């Protein structure tokens, strides 16, 4: 082969390699441009209680140009069902899932199995950030919330609850969350000289009003979740209860009762912040900015 032939073919080969590399780079970049997909698995996701959380997630996702899919799950009864939903989302192309774990002692263990296939971030209450967790969690410190609610009572009563009785009510059956809130509130109240006269957790359906009516009279009733606060607000409004009602809630109904002075104080968990931070942590992990998803307490 003549020298100029060699030069010609070498030149063409170099240029072809350049074209190929550029094409691969462009395709790779285009693939990079494909939006990150994050599925969010919540129990009863259409409930208004999740609005702020979902909005926070969407805001964080929008900043990172990612897509959020709120999975329509219905009522998941156990961790295995939730695990199936996670696996299904992974199969459908989700890059990560944010999960509200169903109540249960073995939930985290089972979800960890699913976490081998796809990164999982939990949005739920956590006892303490110091404990070793199987999966990363972005959530509220339940103990601190209960404590903060009791401190509001303490503030209204001039710093002392000496001789005062307190009733505690919760409709949520998530024992871990409620027990932590109750512990935080109880310890603060007792430290201030007050006494938790009764603590009731459960959904009593239509008999709830009667159930509340038969509880011993107390100076203060604490509602540990939004549903119980709404229930107590309604009950207090209709029955013109004398005890002061304090509660943890986020619904406009709860705020309405505060506005109409049926409820003395509403402690609003920052669900937007939980949604935003959980999604931000997922985004940082998926974009490679961090090598693991950290747990966070809001």
């Amino acid at each position, binding site marked *: 082969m003549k020298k*100029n032939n060699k030069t*010609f073919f070498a*030149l*063409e080969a170099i*240029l*072809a390699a*350049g*074209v190929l590399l*550029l*094409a691969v*780079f*462009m395709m790779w*970049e285009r693939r990079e441009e494909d939006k990150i997909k994050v599925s969010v698995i919540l129990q009863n996701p259409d409930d208004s209680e999740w609005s702020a959380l979902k*909005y*926070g997630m969407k*805001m964080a996702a*929008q*900043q990172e*140009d990612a897509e959020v899919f709120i999975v329509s799950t219905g009522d998941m009864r156990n961790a295995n069902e939730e695990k199936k939903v996670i696996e299904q989302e992974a199969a459908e192309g989700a890059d990560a899932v944010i999960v509200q774990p169903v109540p249960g002692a073995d939930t985290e263990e089972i979800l960890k199995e699913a976490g081998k296939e796809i990164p999982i971030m939990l949005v739920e209450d956590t006892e303490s950030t110091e404990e070793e967790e199987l999966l990363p969690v972005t959530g509220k410190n339940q103990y601190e919330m209960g404590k903060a609610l009791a401190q509001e009572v303490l503030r209204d009563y001039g710093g002392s609850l000496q001789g005062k009785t307190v009733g505690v009510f919760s409709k949520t059956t998530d024992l871990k969350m409620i027990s932590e809130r109750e512990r935080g509130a109880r310890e603060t109240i007792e430290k201030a000289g007050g006494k938790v006269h009764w603590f009731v957790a459960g959904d009593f359906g239509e008999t709830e009003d009667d159930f509340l009516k038969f509880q011993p009279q107390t100076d203060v009733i604490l509602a540990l979740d939004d549903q119980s606060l709404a229930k107590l607000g309604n009950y207090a409004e209709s029955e013109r209860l004398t005890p002061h009602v304090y509660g943890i809630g986020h619904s*406009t*109904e709860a*705020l*309405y009762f505060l*506005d*109409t*002075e049926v409820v003395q104080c509403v402690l609003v968990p920052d669900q*937007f*912040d939980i949604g*935003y931070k959980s999604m931000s942590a997922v985004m940082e992990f998926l974009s490679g900015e961090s090598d693991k998803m950290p747990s966070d307490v809001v």
Partner: protein
Amino acid sequence: MIMIVFTVISVLTILCMGIMVYFRFSSFVKQDAVESTQKLVEQTGESLEDYLVQMRQISDAAYYNVIKENDLSENAEKIQEGMKLLYEANINNLRSIAIYDKEGNLVTAEPVVSKKKGVDVTSQDWFCQAMEDTVNIHFSTPHVQNLFDDGTRRYYWVISSSRVVEITDGGDSYRGVLLVDMDYSGISRMMKQINAIDNGQYYYLCDKNGRIIYHPQQILINNGTEKENSAAAAGYKEGVYDETFEGKHRTVIVNTVSYTGWKLVGVIPDSIITHEMINIQQVVMMWILLMVMMLIVVNRIVSAKISRPILRLNDSVLEYEAGKEAKIYIGGSMEIRHLGESIQNSYRHNEQLMEEIVIEQNERRKSEMDALQSQINPHFLYNTLDSIIWLVEGERNDDATFMISQLARLFRISISKGHTVISVRDELQHVRCYVNIQKIRYKDGFSTIFDIDPSIENCCAVKLTLQPLVENAINYGITEMDGSEVITIAGKRDGGDIVLSVTDNGVGIPEEKLELLLTDSTRVRKQGSGVGLVNVHNRIQILFGKEYGLEIESELDEGTTVSVRLPSIPFTQENQRIFEKGYLFSKEEWENKDEKEQ
């Protein structure tokens, strides 16, 4: 070379074009982004203005057609009805219409709902602004309306327009405030629509003090996670601005909403344009690479089409010059064909001329040979015939007869059918005849010895080379002629050559004369046949080349040896013909030819 030049020019042109295209597209992308954002901002600004104008009209209608036209005490129902009509006509955009007196007491409201307890409107912004500036209608920033309880336990985001109104009550008039609460969702819906395109650019709305009315990341701004340069935007007039905020460069398009002083701001971060630029860069790069690839191929084809005929022409000329190919390439374009034809014609003419020159030279050489050979005859013939006469007169008939027969043989060899090249055998025979004739002439005054290697007898020799040497030896070497004089004629091989020599034991030749013997052709001979050594030497060199010819060795009173060096070429008719035609063999050719024939 043509291809390299073509390619370099093409690549430079494409690079220039690529750079121009890139810059043109880049400016177009930025211009396009700014223009489309500007259009969208203007359109949305107009929609917002329409919305606000509608609110203003509602406020005007409520004031001029309802409140001013009726006395509150006498026509309370009419006022309520008028407000109801207005509310229902604009129910999609309105949340409530209310009239307060200057103390902040509710005079009337539509829809009719219960007033919330403990609400002091005099401390609210919309009320304060209306009371401070009584001339204009004031628009608030979005806020949660918390004046009425409609029983739904819900709260609504509204934008309040407020103005001072004159209320007539029982003939007296006093100041009050007309509040029209517009549903904020109308504006937020509009803003959400233009923010729906998720490409990095966004639009926000702020009031004249820079307070955010709508922002796609309002919550994040409120909780301090994000920041917005709304304070600066509030100070901008309508137009396009480049600004750097939080270390990021961006372009902002500002539109002022009439009546309110609100600013509708479109933000194009530079990162969007940079991203687009990168895409353009890649496309342009790909285009350049493909174009260069294609042009190299095209250039190669074109340059090959141009240069190949030239190169082939050049090759054929080189081959022609090297003697390999006699045909000149004729092909390619008309001009190159013409060039080829011209070169071919030129070569043909040259060849013709060369052939003519060769023929001419051969003829000239032949004439020279003929001329040289012809120098022999007259002198020798004269002397010999004189001797024969002398023998006949002395009645020595046998000697005369022998001499005539030797003369006849000598002439027969001399003629040799006109050939110049003869065999060594014939040349020796010729010499023998000559010697025999001379011996009779000189009455055996000298003797001769022939010492010949028989293997050389079949080699080629130039006719009449030895005879002049013997003649010289007789004429100049031998002086006494007393029978003691000996002339030795020898022949032998010397490497690839043959050497014939004639040696006498005569007086020898002085050194100064020796040098002139082979060079001075103008010397006048006093005796002999007239054929000098120069003649013999020249003839040998003409036929066989400069490395052959005569060598003379002589010592005074000792004798002289004249050697003839000839190539060892077998005598054949073909070789005879070749030599006489004038072809000069190289030494290798002789040797090869010799080996083949042996």
